[in-house]
């Protein structure tokens, strides 16, 4: 049962170096929006004496988007900053949809994009869309930095590739192909016990050839089925070269079901889960392809969102 917060030290670091240096003290942690951290402290799941805010560090607030260049998201950028961005909406629709449908909506106003990824919670929506967009994270110790693809970012459990004395300073999304689209969808389930499934989320990216017929590139990601979002690589490679249509998407969806390890829960939950994985996989692929065909503005079919 949650408690009233105990007092803690709060340091507003002026630079990345100072922030990561402070982390060498035990009981210290970085703090951005606090959406995941503060409830965890209140519940007594974690305890920190010092929180180091990164929100005053210079140079981490950059946000830019351009269809030919990509999206840059600094570590301080709030989720709400993405919601009204026209290019994220048009060309990184999966990300747009994930952010737009965040529940509860207050998280958009408090939470950062980078923080949402670093929290490493397996049912979060934004990481799923980031997998579909092949995000690249920049990790820095204040002096040198290195890039890590999102596929390699999560290391099991709630672990990430962020090493000691490092922090994530930026996320980059590569530009989509000329005729490409993406989509994100999620669906909630009533939970019955602590470790029960309570959601499935999925995202896809589909690029078409010049004739807008055949698939030249695709990603398909399913969330809530493991420690971190799962790329369905078999389906992705099978889709390339196929005509973008029901047949290809249905078989990709079957591969998604096959790729997911069964849960240990009741059989009927397994059945619902498999159905949802199949349907969401097919839906996001179809939606992404439809957007690739039409360069559709996702705002116009917001009513189709789950």
């Amino acid at each position, binding site marked *: *049962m*949650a*408690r*009233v*917060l*105990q*007092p803690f030290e709060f340091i507003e670091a002026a630079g990345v170096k100072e922030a990561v240096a402070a982390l060498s003290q035990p009981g210290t942690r970085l703090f951005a929006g606090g959406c995941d951290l503060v*409830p965890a402290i*209140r*519940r007594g799941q974690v305890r920190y004496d010092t929180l180091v805010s990164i929100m005053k560090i210079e140079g981490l607030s950059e946000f830019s988007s351009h269809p030919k260049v990509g999206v840059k998201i600094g570590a301080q950028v709030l989720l709400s900053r993405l919601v009204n961005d026209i290019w994220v909406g048009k060309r990184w629709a999966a990300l747009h949809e994930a952010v737009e*449908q965040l*529940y*509860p*909506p207050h998280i958009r106003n408090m939470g950062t994009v980078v923080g949402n990824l670093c929290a490493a919670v397996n049912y979060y929506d934004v990481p799923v869309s980031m997998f579909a967009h092949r995000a690249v994270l920049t990790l820095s110790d204040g002096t040198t930095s290195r890039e890590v693809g999102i596929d390699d970012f999560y290391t099991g459990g709630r672990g990430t590739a962020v090493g000691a004395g490092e922090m994530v300073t930026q996320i980059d999304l590569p530009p989509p192909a000329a005729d490409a689209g993406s989509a994100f969808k999620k*669906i*909630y*389930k*009533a*939970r*019955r*016990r*602590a470790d029960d499934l*309570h959601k499935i989320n999925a995202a896809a990216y589909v690029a078409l050839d010049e004739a807008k017929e055949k698939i030249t590139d695709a990603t398909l990601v399913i969330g809530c089925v493991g420690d971190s979002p799962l790329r369905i690589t078999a389906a992705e490679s099978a889709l390339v070269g196929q005509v973008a249509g029901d047949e290809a998407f249905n078989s990709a969806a079957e591969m998604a079901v096959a790729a997911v390890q069964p849960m240990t829960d*009741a*059989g*009927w*939950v397994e*059945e*619902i889960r498999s*159905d*949802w994985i199949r*349907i*969401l996989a097919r839906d996001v692929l179809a939606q992404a392809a439809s957007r690739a065909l039409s360069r559709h503005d996702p705002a116009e079919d917001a009513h189709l*969102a*789950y």
Partner: protein
Amino acid sequence: MNDFAYVGKRMTKPDIYGKVTGEAKYTDDITLPGMVEGRILCAPVAHAKIVSIDTSEAEALPGVLCVLTHKDCPDIRFSRSTMAEALPEFAFTGERQDQFILTDKVRYMGDWVAAVAAEDITTAERALELIRVEYEPLPPVLDPFTALEQGAPVVHEDCADNIAFEMDHPFNCGDVEKAFAEADAVAEFSGVNSRQKHLHMETDVAIASFESDKRLVIYSPSQGPHLAKKHLTKRVFPDLDDGDIRWISPAIGGGFGARLALGVEPAAVLLARHCNRPVRVTTTREEDFQGYSSRTDMHQTIRVAATKEGKLLAIDQKIVSDSGAYLSHSATTSTVNMQKTLGVLKCDNIKGHLTVVYTNTPVTSGFRGYGNPEGAFVLQQALDRLAEKIGMDPMEFRLRNLKEPGDPSCFVPVTLEHTKLKECIDVGAEKFGWKDKWQGWDAAKEGRYRRGVGMSVLTHASGAGGFLLEHSSCVMKVLTDGSLNLIVSPCEMGQGIIGALTQVAAEATGLRYEQIRISTGDTDVTMFDIGSHASRSMLVIGNAVHAAGVKIHDQICERAVKYFEEHQVKLEASDIKVRAGEITSDKAPGVVIDVSKVAYDAIYDFGEGGSQLNASGSYLSTSHHPNHQAAFAEVEVDTETGQVTVVNYVSAHDIGRAINPLLVEAQMEGSLVQGIGFALTEDFVIDPETGKVLSDSLLTYRLPSTMDVPPMEHLLIEEPLEAGPFGAKGCGEAGLVNPAPAIANAIYDAVGIRVHSLPMSADKVLWALKHGTEEAPGQSRVSGQFL
């Protein structure tokens, strides 16, 4: 056309400015000199004996003033529900008083074991961690049906069968079995609602302070401070008398029925007594989820019978309610379910039986609608099944069984005087386009996304006159500028009653709306009233305000006679009228006297006529004056995922007269959103093995967001109720009753399945689509957790 200055107008409610600017003072904003902070230790297990409590470490912590346990509490049991004090003895006899301030045995996870007062809240919090409690775990019983079995764990030692309350429908009538035997068609539906959370933004909080004259002052957001005060003196601290307590309800951060029960007030009083300092006790949102209160989950079966012509012959209802660890409101809400839900249509043979069961789950409570939404979810689906069996349009079936004035009403044993339910159905159906959208019981729907329509009707109360203590009084005084102080005790918890009463007062007195100030919330100042609940405030308190207002109006008229004489017009007081601050008469065209002149001269009269204009008004309600509503929902079901989206919603409400249509519509809009949450997204989940609430935050307990709210229209059917202030009836709760059954009936129309538990979430709908609802999987039967 009415010539009202304010009634029926879309006025801005006067208290809104303080709410939106942050100026309004809530309990948590209040700091008393010397005030310390209190916290309560909640049990981490669902059922256990408390072997020992060692408070020595906690007491030794610097800054801790006292640590209290069960042995420090008055040796008297009470119920958190304060409604007992508003009920006549005959109605009260069955209600158990079953809990201590701090418990002698853990009966649910979250039960209150100890309380701490300390100089600051972090010290109090640390002290909680230093209290060493040795628990001897007992097997918990988490399901009402298991609790009813022989040999089940016993929640309360003096209640070996775990049955907290049992009764037959108070208005059982006719011969139900005979009616079923003779009927052309019989239908049945069973289902259970989930434990919807109130989720008032302000979590439970109270300040208790013993002043130097030994009086106890309590600051707490109660929906009925007079009743709460009475309950506290009679049941919790019998050494205190009614006059020993001054209860102040500051601004209230939402109620929805939760504030009809005592919360942390008894603990705050206990701590204040022991440490001789004012104490504020605070709770967190997670504690609110785990322990405080929610809607009672009522497992129900309703059988209904009709002739082939569509005459409703009989209703037979069985309820098993899961009260949680203590009784609180669950007996009364379940009783109201039987009375109001079954009483919506004309039926001569009614039978109902109710069993309220203790389990080791959090305590449930009263919630907006008070049993009616729980019952309507089941009854209105049973009625649809019956209409289907006789092949009749469900709207037509309801129209054929409407009550008319002169028929027996339902909630209290009176005759129905006023109903516009037929007009509600007609107008709502027209707006919704029911004739076009309803395509018959066997309409074939195809495709992945299928649309369907459903409807539901309800009757609800405007108070419970003839049953509860339904009287109210108020005081008015007019200041020299013609402004009015109105001292009255509704509880403004966001519903807008302050605004509506201001309109009634302005209209009745003839004074200006902008110049009416309401003093409320302080039991030393306001007159007795049982608080804001049961949609009663507008009718009962409104009538008291109207009664006082008319007196002020008449006083102004009498005093105004001489001012007309100054204009060489000789008038009787009855020739004069006061409206919006101006005194005029048809017999003196062109003469306008401002009320401030009369009001000023009344006070500043050094001669014989000096007296401030003042009046009191009282009203006693003798009926529940039911309001009615018809609602129509259109949904779209994704047959592949099971997801349900409400795409359109129309309701029509029998309001008598809307004092402020803006506020009535806002009530309907707000309750529809709460109703959509009840129907589709809000899922209160208790772990079936441990009794822990899993959905204990707003992250996991999903309230509807704006994305879930459809286009909606709320129509007001206005024909004044004679007994209402300017004809008004209540409207606070009704809007929450229809959404779940209307949506459920629409789902059936779309895809032909019915889900038997709320919320009707995607997984349940999908399972039912694939397998039917007969062999529901995962049937734990716990709290809405079966399909």
